């Protein structure tokens, strides 16, 4: 996702894990935007995204030690952020999750309202109504432009499962688009 910073990140991650304060701060500086934008895409609300980004940062203070380098740091970070998004949505509106939590992008939050972006938002609303896993798979594959394998890594499942979720989602969406 951010190949340019990858090598640098790894070094920072290792140092932060070892308790290097400066390295950890630098890591946050580098990745805050990524965390925020990810949260923004998933929640559609700037204020929610800021809250989530902050919680992810705080969480990283302890969670960084459990990063084991088996996946790329950004994939791992994406997963942490996504988990936080899920938790927040579940705890704020447990009953009407699909309705409330996946509310539309607020127009104020998105000043650049070209026609295409508007279409994307409409589509996003339809995607928002999908079951959790399907929505995640579609967002990762289409909004984040990941391969099924990359999406699988983030979702913590098999590549085939991602493909299946995408397939199911498309079937549902076909009538709506």
């Amino acid at each position, binding site marked *: 996702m951010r190949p340019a910073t990858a090598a640098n990140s790894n070094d920072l991650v290792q140092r932060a*894990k*070892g*308790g290097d*304060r400066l390295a*950890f*701060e630098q890591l*946050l*500086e580098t990745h*805050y*935007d990524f965390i*925020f*934008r990810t949260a923004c895409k998933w929640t559609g609300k700037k204020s929610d*995204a*800021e809250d989530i*980004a*902050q*919680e992810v*940062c*705080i969480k*990283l*203070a*302890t*969670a960084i*030690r*459990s990063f*084991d*380098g088996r996946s790329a740091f950004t994939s791992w970070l994406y*997963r942490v952020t996504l*988990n936080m998004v*899920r*938790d927040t949505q*579940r*705890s*704020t509106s*447990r*009953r009407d999750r699909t309705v409330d939590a996946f509310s539309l992008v607020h127009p104020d939050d*998105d000043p*650049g309202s070209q026609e*295409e*972006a508007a279409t*994307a938002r409409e*589509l*996003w609303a339809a*995607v928002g109504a999908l*079951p959790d*896993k399907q929505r995640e798979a*579609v*967002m990762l594959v*289409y*909004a984040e*432009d990941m391969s099924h394998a990359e999406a699988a890594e983030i979702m913590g*499942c*098999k590549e*085939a*499962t991602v493909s*299946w979720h995408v397939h*199911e989602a*498309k079937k549902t*969406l076909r009538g709506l*688009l």
Partner: protein
Amino acid sequence: MDDDKMTDEALSTLRLLRTSAPSSEAKKIAINAAMAAFDAAQVKAPRRGTFSGWRIAGFGLPIGTVATAVAALVLLPLGTQLYTATSRHTNATPPVSSMAAATNATSAETAPVVTADKPTAQGAAAPVTLQAPTAVPEPKSADVAPTANGPVNAESADRDVDALVAPMVASPAPMEKLRMAVPAANATRSSGRQSDFVPFATGDTFQKFDENRVKVTRTDPVSTFSIDVDTAAYSYVRGVLKDGELPQPDAVRIEEMINYFPYSYPAPTTPDTPFKATMSVIPTPWNSKTELLEIGIKGYVPPATARKPENLTFLIDTSGSMDEPNKLPLLKRSFGLLVDSLQPDDTVSIVTYAGSAGVALKPTKASDRSTILGAIDALDAEGSTDGVDGIALAYRVNAEAKGEETTNRVILATDGDFNVGIDTPDELKTYIKTQRDQGIGLSVLGFGRGNLDDALMQSLAQNGNGNASYIDNFQEAQKVLVEQGGANFVTIAKDVKVQVEFNPAQVSEYRLIGYETRALNNEDFNNDRVDAGEIGAGHTVTAIYEIAPAGSGGELNDPLRYQTSQAEPTGLASELGFLKIRYKDPDADTSKLISTPITQDLVVKDASKAGPDQRFAAAVAAFGQKLKGSNYGDMSWSQIANLANGAKGDDRDGYRAEFVQLVKLAASLKPDAAIGGIESSGIASSLVEVN
């Protein structure tokens, strides 16, 4: 595939989703907060060098292996542990690890905001004694859903059913302090049948069992089993399916799958009867000649004011293997929910084992939320130390906070590492039983996959008058810890056994679906020394028999030549059978009996007139049977999905909708065309495509 391409193109516009630029102020605040948390974490956790990435694998050893036996040599003798742990006044303060210390900024700020407005719990619990007969109305339902291939008869028996619950008090059984009974889950036999499914190869172990067979009523009229409110099998199966694999047949325990779902059976209105049985006989969706007898039992829900304060001790596995997103981190995330659902008077304590062992949180009132969350947040899975006497410590800590009127429970959270300080399963069970008799129960929460010893989990919980639940995601944690928290933590009746005697004049054959690992000998029904399952506040339990009505042609066995069907006394001749439920009040040693005839007016001839609960339970049974490659039941995945979909009812929490998705997922993993009902008379399944 043009359609597909169009959808593809449309979806790719998602890439154009715009995000706002982060505000630099928010960024600054976030980073500052994180730095504070980082500093706090460095103080608490010893610094780790470059080896921090290494984990010591293999410490998650199941009990009974050589390695754990060796580790156990350094432990205290069992007798000592028992002595210390069971004495009612424990003065020795257990060591408090430094982890419990300061609450950090993190926990206070990240805790999920779930407000529970419940009145404060007050002392005395409602007395639970058995009384007069109670009418049990059958839930009526108007919503009509076509079932897959059930017979559609014109005549309908849609009437309210007044099943009489006639109580009796059983003859007093010997009161023994230490029960040496055989746990119900002892039906270990080697499986004779090969499944046509390719099982999911994991390190998880499951008790092997043979599916219940069809019994001929004339030779074998009585069926006995223990109640089972565990739901672990469903969440496990769901997890495996969602990973794109098929579960091994022994992992599919149908009764646990059925009991996973909430059903709206009528609850008893007074605490005099701890539970109420609702029965219904509906057409079998997979066999037009047979019927399903569904027995639904609902536990009494005590009003919040009658709730005793809970005294919960979490015994948490912190071995290295717990350091996976779906284990300790999931447990931590779930914990906030639990804490919010507790009453201020409740007490929580945390003991860890396997990793960093010791008391992570001394008994703390639930009102002190931040201290509790701080302690759980500080837990760290690092697996290097061995068990020490985690379990004894947990019971000791729990006993410390035991009050006159508290409900006491140790909750073991693990991914399969039972290295808790007692090295053989049998000793562990005995120990848990002894503690149970001292008034401290045990529940087990299973996390992750790959190392779970399911049978042990189940039998430990059973010995501790608790349940085993498998937690595979946040939603499940919420279900187990919060929505069913009351049921899982407050036992309203124990050693609940069910016995059904069928009337050969009406039912020529029967088969109990599921409950294989809960089978009891018929003579154990009246034996109070034989342990059985527990029912918690508000629990529902469902048991389903597939029955072949006499003369229906649904029998699998030929009629007997030398038996006559004229032998029945006239008054009883029309009954299908007789249901008996035996249970003990939570603190009693003597069981009570409730019984009721299974009468003709319970029979619903028209499948569409059956209640959604009944139809849904049938769908889950069909799913379980198909998933394990059962000899019985023959429906296509889509028929099962349709049946379930039409029986969703209220489904407030979406569990049933999720089930429908799961059926579809299974269909894609094992398409019908490939197996097409090899073993039974597959008419429909091979013809119906799953879409």
